[in-house]
């Protein structure tokens, strides 16, 4: 990831194209777009060294609205295509954008492999738990019982958890935020950008046409404090309207429990500190669900490892160093030759 400072100071607007934004009015995607543009401005990212790659879906329209290089590809394959971009030019800053259908249904495998390979790019998964573009069918993240055109009597399959999947697949950076958290989201995006490797960010996004308010039980203003916990590395895992609730490990059983500071002799010191390098903890945090638990937001896991694109080019360079730049005439003549 190369932060190249452009000559003049760019503002969020400089990252917006002149194309009319074509999401449904009120769609959560607008808020995310704003956050991304603000983040790039904050980072003064060079638009011309930046590429947005997407698949197909409402979310995947994203590149058209970013005044950077952009490639709107086909359904589910953006992680693979982005991998090719990085292989050809590791200097480019690549963002991959798509929906829960795009990246976890048809594209689940590519998402897994880009994560385990740790290709150096940012993956923004807009999870609205529905197929927006194709008019509202349920998705692999939809909760059981989702009524949709393809499941008129309610879905019966168990959903996948994006963050848990990412961790299980070997992702080294897994974070979460919400479309409307206009302060939180840019911070998470910046962390993703700064991480060298595949940075996976799940953004809960409201599709107000086909799945309105599916996250309201933890995103509505009135419940945010009690139903969200914003994790920060090294800080105690505290939440609640009065910031007096906290997470603690249950003795020996590898389960989290909620305790209240000031009750039953619990002090702030008893509260678990977030350690973003601790994978099992990240998994536990990722699996918390309302109403029993708040939803964990922020950088759940970050434990950088060498990147794939870096290693590929390091190997090429090492071999060039070792053998010298290839001599094509010699290559043509390699092996047994004879003169006639």
């Amino acid at each position, binding site marked *: 990831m190369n932060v190249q400072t452009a000559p003049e100071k760019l503002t969020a607007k400089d990252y917006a194209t002149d194309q009319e934004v074509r999401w449904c009015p009120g769609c959560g995607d607008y808020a995310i777009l704003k956050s991304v543009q603000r983040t790039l401005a904050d980072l003064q990212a060079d638009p011309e060294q930046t590429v947005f790659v997407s698949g197909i879906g409402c979310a995947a329209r994203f590149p058209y609205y970013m005044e950077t*290089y952009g490639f709107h590809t086909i359904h589910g394959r953006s992680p693979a295509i982005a991998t090719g971009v990085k292989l050809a030019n590791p200097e480019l800053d690549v963002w991959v954008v798509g929906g829960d259908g795009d990246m976890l249904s048809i594209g689940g495998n590519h998402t897994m*492999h880009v994560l385990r390979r740790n290709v150096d790019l940012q993956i923004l998964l807009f999870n609205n738990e529905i197929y927006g573009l194709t008019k509202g069918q349920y998705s692999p993240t939809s909760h059981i019982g989702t009524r949709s055109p393809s499941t008129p009597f309610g879905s019966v399959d168990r959903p996948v958890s994006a963050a848990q999947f990412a961790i299980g697949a070997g992702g080294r950076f897994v974070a979460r935020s919400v479309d409307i958290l206009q302060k939180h989201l840019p911070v998470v995006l910046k962390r993703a950008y700064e991480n060298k490797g595949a940075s996976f960010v799940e953004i809960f996004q409201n599709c107000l046409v086909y799945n309105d308010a599916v996250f309201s039980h933890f995103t509505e203003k009135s419940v945010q404090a009690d139903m969200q916990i914003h994790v920060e590395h090294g800080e105690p895992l505290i939440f609640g309207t009065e910031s007096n609730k906290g997470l603690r490990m249950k003795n020996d059983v590898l389960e989290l429990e909620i305790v209240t500071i000031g009750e039953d002799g619990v002090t702030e010191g008893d509260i678990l500190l977030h350690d973003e390098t601790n994978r099992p903890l990240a998994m536990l945090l990722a699996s918390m669900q309302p109403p029993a638990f708040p939803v964990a937001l922020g950088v759940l896991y970050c434990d950088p490892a060498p990147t794939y694109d870096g290693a590929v080019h390091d190997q090429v360079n090492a071999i060039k160093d070792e053998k010298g730049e290839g001599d094509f005439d010699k290559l043509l003549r390699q092996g047994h030759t004879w003169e006639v």
Partner: protein
Amino acid sequence: MSEVTAIERPEEKRDEVESAVVRFAGDSGDGMQLTGTQFTLTAALAGNDLATFPDFPAEIRAPAGTTFGVSAFQINFGARRIMTSGDDLDVLVVMNPAALITNLSDVKPGGIVIADTGSFTDRNLAKAGYDGNPLDDDSLDKYRVVKIDMSRLTVEAVKDYGLSNKDALRSKNMWALGLVYWMYGRRRKASTDWLNAKFEKRPEIAGANIAALNAGHAFGETAEMPAEIGGYNIPAAEIAPGLYRTVTGTDAIALGLLAGTRLANLGLTFCSYPITPASALLHQLAAMKEFGVVTFQAEDEIAAVGAAIGASYAGSLGVTSSSGPGIALKMEAIGLAIATELPLIIVNSQRAGPSTGMPTKTEQSDLYQAVFGRNADAPLPVISVSSSTDGFEVAIEAVRLATKFMTPVMLLTDGYLANASEPWLIPDMADYAPFEVKFRTDPKDFQPFTRDDDTLARPWVKPGTPQLAHRIGGIERADGSGHISYDADNHQKMTDLRAAKINGIADDIPEQEIDQGEAGASLVVVGWGSTYGPISRAVNNMRNEGFNVAHIHLRYIWPLPRNLGDLLKGFGQVLVPEMNKGQLVTLLRAQYLVAAEGFNKVNGKPFLINELETAIRGRLEN
């Protein structure tokens, strides 16, 4: 049946023959591929022209002695131009009963069968499915059979090297090679050099192998061969002077892709997923890192083509490769490359299908898929490789077309060419005109879908280029701006432009030439791909017999050369042999309304010269 006798025979008593076809066959563990490769090298050094055909078992390592574990290597070498690896065998060397039962039918009547009697044990005979020992009855009467206990003689020959019996037996292939070297009066030096180099760190192994080689040679020389089996002499062929090596089709394509990207001054990003018989290309290119080649073994074929498209988008040349089933998986993504007009090369090593089919057997049955196998009107150029060495030129041409016309190019090769080798006059790269890609950098009036007047190609822009940031995608793009457009007339226009661009390639490629024979001949044989060798030889033979027949061989399958229709209409009959149920023939009939007739074969094996001759004769003698 002849017995091994012991008549002393002076070396000079060699018959001169024009060419010969020899096959080494044995168990997978018997080292037949190595043996064949050594024989090939030595034939090349002796100045023969040649063609080879390795035939691996489908199983990785089948149990020893089984018929499905037989591995064979065939070489046709001669004092004249060699076009194929040969119809039927002059000499078959079999290292066990399974090799005999599976290969015997290919031996010419009167041909020589050399068998290792030591391996014709009851157990091995049973495994091969023999009731009795065919060496002991009259079942081989139509052949000249040389029965030698090579196993015992090898163990004997290498006894000084202190190897276990099992290890000693591993030199058996070299014993056989030595014998065949003697038969054709070949020098052993190249092989002994190679053995010494290969086993530098295990001199006892090198020594044993060389001892076996020498022993086999000595066996022939010192007179233990049956009377009627003489030594042969195959003089050097008339071959253009220069420096030669052998290449398989895979070698040639790998080198051609690299040569092409060098001529275009581009990086090469090769993205693939293993599949037989395409994997070899990935292996070759993976070893060329000092040339900056980036290879990527993706999680599947879709990811492979996707990454190749991404690489092309980023300004490198993306190449992907697979075989039929894998190519099928790539088609949706190839549509994206067609829509966004990015260069891309797809190498298809065809194999027998449908579905998994017979992965190790050759076929030419993906022409339909190549030309027609995508959703919507999605044309792309299709070119094909007609011989192992031809792969080099065709790969360069693929790079040229892909970059000049900003289009994916499908390159068709097949399982036969992937493995078969030929001598190759090593080209001088100075003879190739560079075709450097000009990336767009000028921001003035830039639009991603403004086209070159001539080629109708759109500009190629490397992300990272100042002031050229833009967006492209698979939804229909407005002419010029490339913005998403659902406009009716724009779609019509863009569809027409895409078609016109690909059709326009017909003006960029050479007119079709006649390979042999005259325009207007009574019959023309039209081929494509790896049938080149047998068709060429068959037509040559028929012409020598006085038949008025011609041969046209297509490199360009789509678009077809612009003079082809007129050319074809001039012939009395048009015969199209293909290793499929009739695919090119459909294209030719539809394009030109010529009454082309298919001649088809799908048994996983290349055409025999003989089959083609019969077909031609049948159509001209009535």
